[in-house]
Every structure is written in C-alpha cells, then in structure tokens.
C-alpha cells in the first residue's frame, strides 16, 4: 500500500494556499441552501420513506369525550385481507408505559397516568384505543371499521370554572386541579391600596390548533436488537431519551432521525402516543411500520395551544404610571399532562410586566383538567398569552385616563439608557431600545395621519370605522440557562451542542444539536462558520436531526437555535482555530503568540509566511509532523449553556377597518419594527417575522378550536378550522432596529416567536379601538364578523 502523499491530495482537492474567503457572511441575505431539494420535490419527508416489507399502522380513536372502556374486540379486523395484526390498548398495557411530562411545576402537581393506548378509560375524543397493522394504507383503514368497542359513558368536563367546583364530575380520580403556582415581587397590596386607577379585565385565550402543514408521521424499523425511528419531530434527541425512559428499551439501542420536517410551531415538540406505539409495534412484529396521520386525525390529537382564562389587574397613578400588576390564570391542561403542558403558563409568568417598570407584581396560575385534547407548546408558548393580556389592558388604562395609548407606554417603559435592567419579575433584560423601534414604526405607519383619519370617520359617522392597534412587546427566548430551568422544576437543561469536522480536503461539516424544520439552519450556520473559520460559505455543510450523527442536542423550540445552538457552533470554531494556531506555529517555527488569524489564514506577524486553514487541516490529517501531544485532527465540539435569556423586542402597529354594519374587519396596514439583535441572515429573519405575524393575526381574527357540549371537536377538519389564506392577509411592512444582545458573542436574540407574540394584541387593540365610540371595550378572539357585529348591538 502506498503512503498517503499530502501534496498529491492537496493538489487533487485543490486545497487553497491563499485564503479563499474575503467578504463577511454574517449579515448577508444569502438565499437558502435548503431550497434546492424543497423546490424540486426531492425532500425527505417521513411519509416518503419506504422500506422493504413495511407495514402500515392505523389507530382507532375514541368517539367519546369521557367513557369507561368495557370491551374491545379486534378479532374480526384480524381476519380481513392484508391485516397482519390488530391490538387493543390492553394488549400493550404491560409495556407501553405512561407518556412523559417533563415539567412537574409544583410539589402538589397531579400527573395522571397517560397510557399511549387507553384501555380503561378514555378522556378526550381522539384518544387511541386500538390499532391495526396491514400491508397497505387502505387495508389498514378499512380494518378499523371491523373493531368493536363498547363504552360506558362518563360525564364530559369542559368548562374550567365549573371543573373547579366541588360538584363537577372528575376527569381523574385525583380531581380536576392539576396544580397551582404562584410568584410575586414587591408589595402588591400596597400598589393597589388607594390606587387612583384600577383596570380589572378578564381575557380568554381561545384554544388553537397549531397545524404545521406536514401532518405527523412515524416510521420505525428494527434489526431485532436495535431500532431506528424516523419521525416528523422537532426533538429527535429528547424523543430518543424519553422513548427509552418510557418503554425501557435501552437508549443506545434507539436511533431517532428527524428528516425534513414540514413545520412544527411547538406541535412537534412532543413525545406522542403514536411514536411510542410504532416503536413497540416494530418490536412485537419484527417488521418496519409506518403511521401517517390524516389532517382530521391531527386536529383531534396533535396537542393544542393557548386555552387560558386570564384575569389581569393594573393599579396606576392618575397620570398613567403603573404601580403594579396582578394576574390570575386558569390554564386548560386538557385530559393529561404531556411533555411541557404545565410549564407553558409559567413561560408567561415572567412576562406580564412586559417592557414596563412597576413596583409590584403578582402572578398565580391554576392548571385545570378537562376532557379535551391536552394543550402544550404552541409558537410563543405562554408569552403570547402574557403579551396579549398586558397590551390589551394597557390600552384600557389609556382609554380610562383619556390618554393616547402610545403615551401611556412611553411613560412606563424602560428607557434605553436604563439597560441592563432587572424587571419586577426578576429577569435582567440585557439590552433594548424601545424608543428607537417605536419611532421607526410610527414613522412607517403614519400614526398621526391615521389618527386624523380616524377622527374624521368618527365625525362623519362613517359606517366603516378605523382602529389603530399598538403592541410594544418583549419576550424571553433563547431557552435557556439550565440553572433557571432547574429552579422552575423543568426536567432537563437548556444547553446546546455543536461540532465542527474539518475534512481532509478543507471542506467543513458542521453538526448542530438543534433540529431545523423550516428555519434555515443549514444556511445561517454556514454563514457563521464561513466567517469564523474564513472558509467559503459553499464549503460548509450542516448536519442535524439524526441522533447517530448529532449525538447530543436539546433540539428546537423557544427561539433557541441561533442564540444557543449557533453559539455552540461558533465556540467549536474557536476551538478549531486554537488547534490550527498551534499547528501553524509548529509548521512555521514560531510561537503560537506570534500567529495572527485573518480570513482563513494563520500568518506569522510581520512576515508574509502563512498557512491556510485548509493546508493545516490536511497537515493534521496526514499527521506526519504535529507538535508533541497534539491529536491528529482539528475537529472540535462545544456544548454551551446560555448565561441569560435573550430579549427581542419591537413595536407592531396595525390599522383595521371595521364595517359597523356587517362586522367585517379588514387589516388596512400592518407595520412591524423588531429588534432581534444582530442578524445573521436578514432574509430568514424577515421570513420568520412574516410567518409569526400571520399566525398571531390568525389567533386574533380567524382560528378557534371548538368543542361542543358533549366534548366533540367541531373543528376537526381543515374545512372547519380556518387557517388564513393569502387572500385573508395583507402585505406586512417590516423593518428592524439593531441593539445587540450582550449575552452572546454574536449579539443575536432569536426571532422564531417574536411575530406571533407581538401581533395578536396589535390586531385586537385595533378592532376595539375602532369601536370605542360605540362603547365596545372588548371582543373575544377570534374577532369574527359575527362577534364584532354582536358587540355592536
């Protein structure tokens, strides 16, 4: 065998001896690397996967909101053509475990047993009670009809207030209260004592269905010993860990792959019954199995979002200065506590003070069981709810005092020179400039001109009235410092992992522990690495979403990927450079201190001698002449734990025309100025803001999951649960101010949830503002034409 000749390899691979990367990548509007496969139909969705001998799974689901299961007979289904097996929940009772809740928020929390397939009692419509495994999708679906189930009906529990009365039927034997959680700072009684103004409002956060466009899908295969699962999930790492914990299958025998995933918005941040059962079915049958959800099945059984009743009180001085805020929440958990169900309201608990200063704050939350689909994280998780109640109530305060709503905000918000600022909720906002974002938004919006038009329409008694809505928001994201998560009883940490693999030809493979599903990590991470290592953007590839490739990770949620995951990648790059510097010094026969790095080359200071990072990578690979003790690779890993949350903020302004005769609303203009810190790729940021705003508007005007009096979901199809289409939404005007975060080296803050958090109150404030002269103070979301019209009667 001939010896490796580095010079030959270098020549063949075109290893540069001059640095190739010149311009800055971070900050550039790069078109995305991901697009090529997504645009040409070569995407790898989970449902695309076909394996030899694969079987198809379908679940039979409860048509009852609450019932005792008295008999399940799958025998007739077993006899049908193509059917390989059929099982009831009881068939898996001994091995299926209980679906995990990772966030036991309080000592008194009730975490009921949650079998993936019910076998004693069902507690929401859609809960799985039996399954069929067949050789085709259609045969599996046919066979469901042959399964017989007898139910003994139990009373549905649907209303949170009623559920907490002593006379309510119980969802679980332990009662309907899941937990209470309280938090406060400052003297709240003092703040409210003799307060010149008290605003006292109750808002309803309707239940929403997250509706990622890709329905869930799971494929699981086994070689008799180990298991590989593909799942449309946001959390391959957490899923692997919890599949092991739930089923007892050792963690190292499970590999989880999240291939291309078609959106999540929190809905795929879950360990689902179907994932656990596909794993167990693959084990029992020794064959690959696939389950793909239908949309109607998904509306019933993908966890829902929001569903809170918010009681908020503000005590203020006569001039509008806020003294204190008091919040009391009821949060609908649904029938069980899933992965972070009880933690969602807690993510809002530190946000009801928003960007404002005050002397006292008090928060209490009660989690309530009902016979509905469990709730859990949905884009923003807790923070949109908080921002909504606060920004709505601030408008009420302004109205009460006959002040312009922006004036009240300016009076109370943290001034830019006051950062870092520790809020009444105990968070330290590292940076921000609310004045700058607001001034920019007001100018783009033409606030004063629109106010003049509003006055004119009011004077004329125009049937179409104009309303202006404001939302000056902040959020905590970049989840999260592990010690803070620990103090809130969350079951895991908030760190993230990244690795950088230097390939012999000088190309770079980056592995990230966060798992993208539309956010553009492959592009943004390439930009970060290109700058950090001085390599061409095209020379970087980014791998993610497979526990065998990305061995550590905390996955994607809470606008954390860039702020935590991106920083882990950056830190791994720094380690690569430190090794390369040592090797350069050795090769160029100088001290590492005499080496300076610039744009991909390590130079001896004051000379023209240099080695490119690609040359050094190849030298490390050949390993013929390394410094003593240096291992033959430049690759590096980093795991970082953020020191603080990050706090994007911004000002969103919305103008809505309301037809007082029909109740029809029309968004006339929407301006968003967000400050997400330094921006890696403005194109991606703008896209995230657009999508976020659309989802927030959807809550304000269109969407609601509705259960009837028996606990049937009336909005179980896409024909009933109305997602806005292009025709329902306007073009958004977006801009940014840039106040870098001080808590990470790139100054980034995260942008995944900002638009959703900000937009809902901006829209509803605008609708209510239009109708104030008619005595309207609130319209329950979604503000449909019917609800608006009724409010006017």
């Amino acid at each position, binding site marked *: 065998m001939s010896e490796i000749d580095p010079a030959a390899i270098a020549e063949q691979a075109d290893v540069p001896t001059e640095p190739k990367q010149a311009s800055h990548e971070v900050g550039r509007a790069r078109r995305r690397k991901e*697009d090529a496969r*997504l645009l040409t139909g070569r*995407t790898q969705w989970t449902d695309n996967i076909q394996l030899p001998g694969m079987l198809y799974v379908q679940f039979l689901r409860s048509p009852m909101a609450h019932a005792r299961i008295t008999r399940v007979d799958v025998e007739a289904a077993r006899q049908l053509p193509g059917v390989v097996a059929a099982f009831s929940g009881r068939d898996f009772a001994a091995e299926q475990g209980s679906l995990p809740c990772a966030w036991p928020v309080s000592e008194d929390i009730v975490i009921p047993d949650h079998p993936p397939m019910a076998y004693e009692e069902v507690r929401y419509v859609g809960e799985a009670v039996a399954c069929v495994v067949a050789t085709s999708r259609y045969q599996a679906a046919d066979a469901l009809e042959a399964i017989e189930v007898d139910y003994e009906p139990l009373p549905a529990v649907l209303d949170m207030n009623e559920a907490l009365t002593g006379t309510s039927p119980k969802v679980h034997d332990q009662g309907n209260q899941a937990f209470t959680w309280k938090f406060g700072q400052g003297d709240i009684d003092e703040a409210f004592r003799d307060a010149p103004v008290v605003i006292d409002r109750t808002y309803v956060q309707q239940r929403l269905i997250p509706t990622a466009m890709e329905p869930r899908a799971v494929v699981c295969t086994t070689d008799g010993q180990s298991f590989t699962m593909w799942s449309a999930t946001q959390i391959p790492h957490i899923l692997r860990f919890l599949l092991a914990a739930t089923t007892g299958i050792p963690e190292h025998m499970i590999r989880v792959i999240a291939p291309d995933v078609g959106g999540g918005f929190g809905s795929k941040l879950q360990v689902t019954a179907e994932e656990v059962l596909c794993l167990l079915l693959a084990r029992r049958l020794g064959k690959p199995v696939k389950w793909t959800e239908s949309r109607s099945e998904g509306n019933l059984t993908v966890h829902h979002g929001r569903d809170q009743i918010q009681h908020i009180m503000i005590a203020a001085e006569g001039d509008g200065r806020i003294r204190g805020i008091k919040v009391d929440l009821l949060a609908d958990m649904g029938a069980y506590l899933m992965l972070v169900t009880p933690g969602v309201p807690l993510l809002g608990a530190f946000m009801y003070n928003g960007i404002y200063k005050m002397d006292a704050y008090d928060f209490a939350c009660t989690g309530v069981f009902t016979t509905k689909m469990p709730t859990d994280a949905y884009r923003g998780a807790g923070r949109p709810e908080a921002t909504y109640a606060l920004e709505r109530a601030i408008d009420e305060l302004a109205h009460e005092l006959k002040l312009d709503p922006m004036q009240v905000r300016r009076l109370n918000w943290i001034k830019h020179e006051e950062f870092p600022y520790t809020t009444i909720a105990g968070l330290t906002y590292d940076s921000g400039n609310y004045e700058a974002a607001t001034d920019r938004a007001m100018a783009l919006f033409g606030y004063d001109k629109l106010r003049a038009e509003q006055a004119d329409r009011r004077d004329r008694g125009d049937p179409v009235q104009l309303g202006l809505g404001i939302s000056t928001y902040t959020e905590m994201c970049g989840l999260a410092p592990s010690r803070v998560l620990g103090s809130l009883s969350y079951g895991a940490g908030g760190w993230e992992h990244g690795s950088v693999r230097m390939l012999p030809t000088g190309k770079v493979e980056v592995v990230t522990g966060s798992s993208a599903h539309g956010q553009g990590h492959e592009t943004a991470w390439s930009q970060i690495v290109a700058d950090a290592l001085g390599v061409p953007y095209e020379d970087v590839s980014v791998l993610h979403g497979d526990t065998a490739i990305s061995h550590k990770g905390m996955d994607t949620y809470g606008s954390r990927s860039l702020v935590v995951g991106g920083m882990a990648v950056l830190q791994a790059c720094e380690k690569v450079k430190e090794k390369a510097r040592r090797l350069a010094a050795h090769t160029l026969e100088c001290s590492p201190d005499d080496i300076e790095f610039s744009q991909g080359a390590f130079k001896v200071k004051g000379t023209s001698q240099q080695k490119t990072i690609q040359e050094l990578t190849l030298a490390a690979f050949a390993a013929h002449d390394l410094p003593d003790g240096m291992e033959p690779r430049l690759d590096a890993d980093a795991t970082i734990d953020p020191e603080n949350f990050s706090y994007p903020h911004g000002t969103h302004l919305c103008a809505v025309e309301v037809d007082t005769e029909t109740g029809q609303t029309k968004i006339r203009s929407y301006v968003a100025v967000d400050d997400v810190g330094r921006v890696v790729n403005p194109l991606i940021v703008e896209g995230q803001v657009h*999508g976020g705003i659309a989802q927030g508007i959807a809550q304000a005007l269109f969407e609601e999951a509705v259960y009837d009096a028996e606990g049937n979901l009336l909005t179980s199809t896409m024909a009933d649960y109305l997602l806005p289409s*292009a025709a329902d*939404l306007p*073009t958004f005007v977006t801009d940014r101010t840039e106040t870098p975060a001080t808590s990470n080296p790139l100054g980034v803050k995260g942008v995944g949830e900002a638009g959703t958090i900000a937009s809902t109150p901006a829209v509803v404030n605008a609708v209510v503002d239009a109708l104030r002269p008619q005595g309207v103070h609130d319209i329950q979301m979604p503000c449909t034409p019917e609800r608006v019209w009724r409010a006017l009667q």
Partner: protein
Amino acid sequence: MPRIAVTVDGIKYEQDVEPRLLLVHLLRDHLGKTGTPIGCDTSNCGACTVLLDGKSVKSCSVLAVQADGSDVVTIEGLATNGSMHPMQQAFHEEHALQCGYCTPGMVMASIDLLRTDPDPSEEAIREGLEGNLCRCTGYCNIVRAVKRGAQNVGATS
C-alpha cells in the same frame, strides 16, 4: 382492478389500480413520486397540487382512474436540463418557502395562475392562491415570488 395508462413527468406508466385509489396516492405510493405531499383530507390545503393535462388540480381530490390517458406534471417534472423552472427560481430568490411543505403545491398553482393571467396583480395572486395554504411564510414572499416568476416566465418565453 382497472388498468390505467398515465404519463407522469414525461414517463408513461401502465398500472392496475383500485377504483378508489387517489391520484396523490398513485403518485406517492405506487410511482415513487414523493415530491407531491399531502397536507389534508378535505381538499383544503393545496399541498398536493399537480398539473393534469396542463391545468392545476388537487391530486387528493382526483381518482387515479380519472387520470387515465392523461398527462400529469408534478414538481419533480418542472426542471429542464437541470435548471429550475423560472417559478421555482423565483421562490428561491424571494425566500418564499420555509419548511417547504406547501411549496410543491404553491409552485404548481402559481404556474397555473399565470396561464390565465400572465401578469397578475397582488390581489389577483392572493385570490388565485386562496386554495393553497402555507403556515410558515405569511404569504408576503410568496406573492413577491409569483410576481417575479411572472417576469421570469415572460422573459424566457
């Protein structure tokens, strides 16, 4: 089982199909054309949109037998000589996709939109794409992309 003949992206297939088989399942499960995804079961989302004899249809609302003798073009058949269709290119340029799940349907519906309105206004684009839902983008960049795509298509034809 009826036997059908259908051309998909330029290749002729003859296939025995169950009478109830949906065109989208024929494409995905039988012909391996997984570029066309499924987003709903009520013909609302448009993710499954393909061109059937030149006109866009939701392939989940067409039976495979109805496509007998027809010519189907999916997202996989748009590129020519290795370069993307001008509409695909425009979606890329304008960042009109995030997760990309709605994208095949959006692109096919947009191409069909230009058939009847080669230079659509913003309003015409928004109305024309009403049957295609996207959860990620808020549609702004899709509207921009269709405008640019119209220009690109105009320039190349």
